[in-house]
């Protein structure tokens, strides 16, 4: 396999692709495990050679895909610091947050196939951790909704507001109410470090 380094044009794209695929699976899994939506809409699919639960609902899937489609350019340029999946109750107060911190190690290269399968293994572990997270989290109240927040570095958000990546899918600056949680406890779920990306995920609950 060819060696790609940071300077290569499509290196960022490859990493962003991997990460966005992972985030899509993770979001679906979070929705399933935390019972945000009834489990009937989920079906088993395969990712990284293990079964995962993905939703069949077309609008939900489209929403998640659009969200990640907008996030992808930020990841490519290494401007996304954190991606947060927030679960909110009926009054739009956050009850839980799943934080994915993303950083790219300085020395980067995709040099061999074993590296990618190593990444696959690490991502599998993260997925497994999400599956068992309900041991440490309390049950959510009924009628929860979710949203995805992105914490970016610097002024990336200004560009996002100016240019709509997807038509009719605007991003807005999150309310303080949505971001801030009272008495938050942080439970780290999994940290993974590989040559191409670092990712730590944690659950924060009220």
């Amino acid at each position, binding site marked *: 396999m060819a060696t790609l380094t940071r300077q290569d044009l499509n290196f960022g794209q490859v990493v962003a692709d991997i990460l966005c695929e992972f985030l899509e699976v993770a979001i679906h899994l979070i929705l399933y495990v935390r019972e945000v939506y009834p489990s009937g*809409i989920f079906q088993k699919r395969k990712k990284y050679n293990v079964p995962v639960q993905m939703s069949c609902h077309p609008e939900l899937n489209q929403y998640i895909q659009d969200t990640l489609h907008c996030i992808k350019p930020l990841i490519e340029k290494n401007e996304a610091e954190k991606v947060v999946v927030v679960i909110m109750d009926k009054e739009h107060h956050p009850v839980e947050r799943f934080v994915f911190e993303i950083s790219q190690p300085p020395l980067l290269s995709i040099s061999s196939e074993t590296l990618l399968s190593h990444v696959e293994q690490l991502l599998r572990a993260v997925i497994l951790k999400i599956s068992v997270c309900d*041991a440490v989290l309390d049950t959510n109240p009924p009628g929860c909704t979710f949203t995805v927040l992105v914490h970016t570095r610097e002024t990336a958000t200004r560009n996002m507001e100016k240019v709509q990546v997807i038509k009719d899918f605007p991003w807005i600056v999150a309310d303080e109410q949505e971001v801030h949680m009272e008495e938050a406890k942080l439970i780290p779920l999994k940290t993974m470090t590989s040559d191409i990306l670092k990712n730590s995920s944690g659950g924060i609950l009220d």
Partner: protein
Amino acid sequence: MDMDMDMDDLYLDNIDEFVNDQNKIVTYKWLSLTLGVHVNTAKQMLYHYLEQKRRESSGTPLHATYLVSGKFVENGSTCHKVSVVREDKLDAVKAKMDVTISVHVYSVQRAELKDSSPLYSTDYDAVKENLKNCSKYSAIRCAAAVPMASVELQKAQEVALVPPVEKEINKPRLNENTSATSKPSTKQPTGIMGMFASKNASKSQESSKEVKTEQKDDSSLVETSKTKPASKANPMSNFFGKPAQKKVDEKPSKSIKEETDGDSAASTTASVKLSQPSPKSEFAIKEERSKVSSALKAESKDTRNKSKRPEVVDSDDEKMDNQQKKRRRIKKPQPDSSDDEVVPDSPPVPTKQIPSPKKQVKREPVSHQESSEVKRRKRRRVLKSHTFVDEDGSFVTEKGYVSESYSESEEEPEPKSQAKDSSSLKQSFGKREEEKKEKSQKKTSASNKSTKQPSIMGFFQKK
């Protein structure tokens, strides 16, 4: 004796650490590979640990899953059933069995699992690392089961490739089609609730590679499961013929692999290839396929698929793609992913062979690989009957064949009709009836035009 006691305590402490501190799922298989002990020892350790913790009744609650195996009578036939059940369902499952042969702890974890996917994931990496000797600690022994030498392995792979090649020759058009660019249709219709109701998932998550592999794998699977590769003149009937035969083959199965959780656990992976699942566990079939296909993924059939891809690339790509997907699906009626509780259409599907086209159609709504937009396009092009059967079984095949010939003979009007249909599909669910009317109008106009029985070549020649 003291040493043994200490060792046991040590192991129990280990388990405690895994379960409570690391919040892991500890399956007996994972434990045996991690600690290097025989599986039976691992099972006993888990049992003792569970007992101890339950006696103490302190700390966080633990959940366990059990493996139950025994004789089970279903529809008059006795079979040996092995299932992984949650603790709360254990007694119910044991009561249903005629004879319970064995019950043992399968896993211990803090989390209450909603489905069995994490159980499989837990074992996956452990087994993968120990692939060569994963049965070192296993209790199942077979003297004849020895890994093949690499030479034998190559020969076996070559043999396995030959039957699918024959199949491909018999249906060259279909294969050409199926190996076309497999860009999943990314634009999913958002408003069609029918798709959602009939369990059709957006395909974008699945890699197209997997689907293609599965189609090829399925053709080999069908081969190995002794279905006659009856190459009829009409390639369409091949689709009908194969799954119908497969259904018949599956009926007289002795062993039923069933999971009360609704999912198949790691324990079924070993016996997937050997057992022929019953129609009742249709979902298990789908999952079987996915596991087998993942095992067969590395075969060179894939490369053959890929090499054919560049051949069929046009402006009509998407439609071709849809048709290809449609055909692929017909060939392989059960999609790779499986196990959904929400399967509205499949239970009533009859397993008779005669109304096999009808069955095909019923299965398509069940299939959750593609959007109905894709499905409908294919139906329109190739098996137009399907749309009708979907809604009203009485129409069945007659209409289908008429329209089929239409699609094969017509060239110019076809793309236009396709474009029109696809645009209408993007509208909401309520407009579905209009689409039907549209199609029926087109069909009547189409049937006027075609008077001969065209070959399927006509369809492709326009490219």
